[in-house]
């Protein structure tokens, strides 16, 4: 059996923060923590290799790093992939989670990592990746590696009950929803559930109510007439031709475009990239999604001090809420940094 083990520059004993830019490096044999696992598995005829990668390199050059990992997988053809343990190291944990998920999805071999429950990497664990619970620091190294070895032995034995027992006992319980087979079509379950509901029998919804994070609208500090106001939209309005290639759905980015010196947004100069609503009215009059014409009137009437020179835009359709939160936070940070005190946010 061949095992490939991903470690960051520190645990691969290449160096500290000064080596965080280390690109993906294939090292035949085990290094550091890997030697403990290799030793524990010595009766199983394991061929071991190590992948070392700097934490900064992984996050700044993720695509390149994954290409490097793919090359190593093609070359070494492992049967099992390990990463970490990362304990509570955030950047390392994220890298371990992403690498394991990528390998499990694309290479379809078992992938195991380990981290502490507070590690942000827990948000990036793909389906079927084993995440062994560890302590917050490398003080729990020995116990963590013992668990890695135990899980590998159980995987080798193919004993599913033992694997599931291990998962229950030692893997992080991360509440994530995935597709499973219920055993009956939706229309049958729906009719059954309805009859239970009508007849007053106990019933359970298959989709839980999830508490959403509340974002109270902050009060304006100072007076509106002294404030700089910005226009922000999720309606996908971009300069004609979409120079930055804003996605029309599953938006992953936001952009800002200048409106300095413009009295309104004219037809033919802007267009909307958005698959969630009928954009034809906005294409005819872009002011109807980014109301520059009205804002200039109010600005001249001194209802507020100044309109911010850029409007901000993303596409609010088909995307994941966590990505939208990230985009929102990015826009808010930029606006706050430019002295903007109030925002008009137009949604579709």
């Amino acid at each position, binding site marked *: 059996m061949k095992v490939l083990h991903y470690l960051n520059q520190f645990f691969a004993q290449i160096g500290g923060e000064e080596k965080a830019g280390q690109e993906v490096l294939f090292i035949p044999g085990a290094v550091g923590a890997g030697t403990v696992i290799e030793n524990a598995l010595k009766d199983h005829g394991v061929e071991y290799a190590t992948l070392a990668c700097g934490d900064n390199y992984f996050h700044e050059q993720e695509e390149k790093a994954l290409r490097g990992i793919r090359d190593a997988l093609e070359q070494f053809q492992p049967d099992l992939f390990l990463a970490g343990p990362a304990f509570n190291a955030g950047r390392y944990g994220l890298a371990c989670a992403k690498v394991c998920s990528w390998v499990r999805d694309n290479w379809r071999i078992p992938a195991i990592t380990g981290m502490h429950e507070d590690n942000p990497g827990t948000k990036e664990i793909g*389906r079927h990746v084993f995440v062994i619970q560890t302590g917050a620091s490398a003080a729990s190294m020995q116990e963590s590696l013992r668990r890695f070895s135990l899980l590998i032995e159980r995987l080798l034995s193919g004993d599913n009950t033992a694997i599931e027992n291990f998962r229950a006992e030692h893997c992080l319980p991360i509440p994530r929803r995935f597709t*499973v087979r219920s055993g009956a079509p939706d*229309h049958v379950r*729906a009719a059954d559930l309805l009859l239970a509901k009508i007849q007053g029998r106990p019933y359970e*919804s298959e*989709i839980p109510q999830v508490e959403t994070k509340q974002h109270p609208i902050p009060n304006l500090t100072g007076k509106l007439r002294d404030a700089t106001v910005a226009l922000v939209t999720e309606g996908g309005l971009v300069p004609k031709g979409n120079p930055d290639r804003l996605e029309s759905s599953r938006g992953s980015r936001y952009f800002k475009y200048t409106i300095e010196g413009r009295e309104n947004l004219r037809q033919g100069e802007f267009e909307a990239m958005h698959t969630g609503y009928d*954009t034809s009215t906005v294409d005819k009059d872009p002011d109807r999604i980014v109301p520059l014409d009205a804002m200039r009137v109010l600005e001249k009437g001194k209802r507020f001090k100044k309109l911010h020179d850029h409007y901000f835009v993303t596409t609010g*359709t088909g995307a994941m809420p*966590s990505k939208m939160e990230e985009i929102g936070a990015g826009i808010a940070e930029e606006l706050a940094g430019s002295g903007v005190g109030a925002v008009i946010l137009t949604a579709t």
Partner: protein
Amino acid sequence: MELQLLDYALEEIQWSEHTALNGKSLSVCVGDLQEQIKDLSHGIQIDYELARPGESKRIVHVLDTVLPIAKLNRSGSTFPGFEGAAQLVGTGQTTRIRNLLVTIAARFPHPEAMTPIEKPREGMIDMAGVGAPYSYGSDYFHLILALTPDSSVSNAAFDQALRNIALRCARFLAQVDKNGNEPDRKIIALKPVDKRLPKVVLIYQVQSQLVCARTFYYGEEVSKTLPTFVHPAEFFDGAVVSGNYKSERKIPTSRHCANPFIAELLERHGKTMNFLGVILSRGYNDSFEQKKKMGLWVARLARNLGADGAVAFMEGTGNGTVDFMQTVKACEDEGIRTVAVLHESNGPKGYERPLVDHPKEADSMISRGNVSEKIYIPPLATVIGGAEIDLHLKATHDPRLPFLFDPTIFFGSYSKMGDCGFRAAYES
């Protein structure tokens, strides 16, 4: 009101010199199809292909599938409103081939002239393998028409042509000579039943927004109608036709004609419930106020029909979820106990909020699974309909190669995942 359905099923399909159904084997002559649609296909090149359940075939660019249905004795026409003057349907006799689809695979002639929302989304049908339980139609025989329009055809003309070609072929195939086979005969009706049984309506919310994302009722866009009562038998005669190319979410025309929810409630009618019929409503209204009103009107109609309960499903996602949830809320507020069926978008890593909108009244949901989960999609032996697929306007892919994507790449996947009994659950 009563419809008699004469139901045929295939076990084989092949090309032949003559078009006929002999026993359970359908022979199709391409020349007969060409003759049927010659006035509809100007400027459109058509390749004809076959696919059978379990074959290692991948059909790409699928825009719609249509079930062969035709009125017997020429009494009126199936798919009313699409050929000649519309007449009421849902009575008399209808012939159907229940496991054959006329499948249209095509790209529009001028995609650059379409706004983002008009652009069709890629939809493929895998007849075997990992993709089959995500592909609507993987358990049907397919007569595939791969259309290639030349640049003289406008987008609007092509939209009409592809629909009319499919509907006419479907009517034609249902009418072919039949030898050595007896159909299953079924009566589609809502006969009076024990009055003590709970009264149930089916709420049927379709996507109808604009061209290429619309649904027709008797040939009229549902976006121009109010929520309305439809008798189940009308669906079997093709009263509802899809013009929606939001591939993974769409309810194909064939599914409007043979909807498992309608079949399920008809089956239970008189046994455990009193099925009152269907309320056809529209999602994707433009404003929140409109969405709310649509919900109120559905609830009012259900109340006036005397419903104690409702099963509700919707076509679409995101935007349409708000209309749907307003409908569920309004029904519950009217005292109509409602079960709502929906897909979840929990993200590739499974931890995202399942639904974009989830009011507390929607307390009895049925899940169709996580549609944003990544699946590894291996290649199949043959690709029909195109040499390159569009990964939802972000990238293109050679469909002969394996790739990692979510179920949204499959035609009718949201419905199909429900049919297959998929649901989302917390990983233990």
